[in-house]
């Protein structure tokens, strides 16, 4: 399925080795030879190019947010110089790919925008063209060299950008996951009445977690009634419904009466359409009704003063 381009966990291209990637970018040994030959010409000028880039970078308003102090700038500069030497050595193996991935990871970690990386690449491309134009080689030879350089640059950019987006995605997923996980607050809202407002998405791991917490709270507080409010649950499919049914069954086994509240009209219809049998579980449309049932169950009445 070559046209599927997005994966949230995105391990797809990172598992590819150098040979596969080179083939994908149609970079031949002849291309690499051209880059190396050209490298001999440009190598003495790399330092000057990098200098030029930092002059440009200094003009950007956000520079100091990323390169805190001069020592840091010096370090990054050394890395960039090495980057171009590696590039023009054109020895593309798995180690090379790994160094590019490392750059993507580092950029993502310090949240350095990709446009700065791309600007650096662009800066180099401009310089390469300048050097090529001044060359005495015949025109089509120069074009082939330029094409080879461009291909290898795209190759580099792809690996770095891909790794960058992967790391960013992972961070995002981690954040949303931890947000989901921290919200399982089983609370005693009254003597003998426990309540859990479920919010977000329920997967198998979270379902286990919820079950464990609810049952432990029932054991600890010896509550005789448990209200599970599902109005904030994004999706109720058969898997989620089964988790909910299991939780309520286990509750009942412990001698605690489960109530499920917050079944919106849409969710209720969906559950019926799915053909899920909720059995004898007491369900209500809103929390208010559930509370009434709960008070009734523990033998209390709420009256107006």
């Amino acid at each position, binding site marked *: 399925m070559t046209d599927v381009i997005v994966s949230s966990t995105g391990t797809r291209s990172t598992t590819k080795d150098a040979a596969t990637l080179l083939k994908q970018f149609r970079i031949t040994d002849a291309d690499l030879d051209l880059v190396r030959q050209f490298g001999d010409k440009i190598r003495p000028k790399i330092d000057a190019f990098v200098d030029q880039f930092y002059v440009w970078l200094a003009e950007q308003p956000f520079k100091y947010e990323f390169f805190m102090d001069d020592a840091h700038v010096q370090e990054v500069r050394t890395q960039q110089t090495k980057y171009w030497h590696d590039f023009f050595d054109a020895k593309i193996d798995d180690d090379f790919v790994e160094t590019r991935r490392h750059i993507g990871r580092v950029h993502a970690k310090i949240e350095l925008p990709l446009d700065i990386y791309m600007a650096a690449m662009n800066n180099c491309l401009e310089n390469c063209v300048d050097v090529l134009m001044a060359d005495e080689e015949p025109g089509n030879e120069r074009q082939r060299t330029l094409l080879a350089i461009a291909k290898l640059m795209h190759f580099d950019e792809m690996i770095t950008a891909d790794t960058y987006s992967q790391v960013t995605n992972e961070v995002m997923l981690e954040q949303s996951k931890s947000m989901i996980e921290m919200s399982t607050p089983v609370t005693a809202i009254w003597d003998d009445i426990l309540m859990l407002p479920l919010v977000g998405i329920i997967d198998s791991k979270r379902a286990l977690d919820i079950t464990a917490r609810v049952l432990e709270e029932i054991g600890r507080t010896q509550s005789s009634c448990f209200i599970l409010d599902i109005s904030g649950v994004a999706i109720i499919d058969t898997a989620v419904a089964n988790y909910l049914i299991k939780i309520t069954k286990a509750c009942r*086994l412990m*001698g605690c009466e489960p109530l499920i509240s917050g079944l919106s009209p849409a969710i209720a219809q969906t559950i019926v359409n799915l053909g899920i049998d909720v059995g004898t579980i007491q369900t209500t449309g809103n929390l208010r009704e559930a509370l009434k049932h709960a008070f009734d169950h523990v033998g209390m009445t709420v009256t107006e003063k």
Partner: protein
Amino acid sequence: MTVRESGVMQDPKSNNPSDGTETAFNIIDGRLIVTLHPKDDDFYFDSLCDDVSFALGKSGCGVLIMDATHLELIDDWDFQRLRRVIDVAALMGTKTIIAGVRPGVAASIVELGCDIGGFSTALNLKSALRFADTEIGP
């Protein structure tokens, strides 16, 4: 509502036979109370059904309360044995209440997909007795 704490009630532990082959019984106000304890061997649950049905027949109790407070683990095999006790009791016209099921045990029973119909549950022995009074009657 009063909870009758009968003098017949003994500490379940002191009543547990050390060899694990006999079942501990108490009768409080006409409720037959069985304390389930962690099995030492398979023989315990095997003999449970015989012992309980015999005790039910002899005592004429209309309510059987099984106290699971001391039970920390249960497997499919064990639950099938308990299931048999409940089914036999039901045939003898006795209602079963299981009391004090621990979180881990409750989760395992559900995970095993066991049939959990035909009996009532209570948080602990005290609420089981109260439940018997209010919902089932003498």
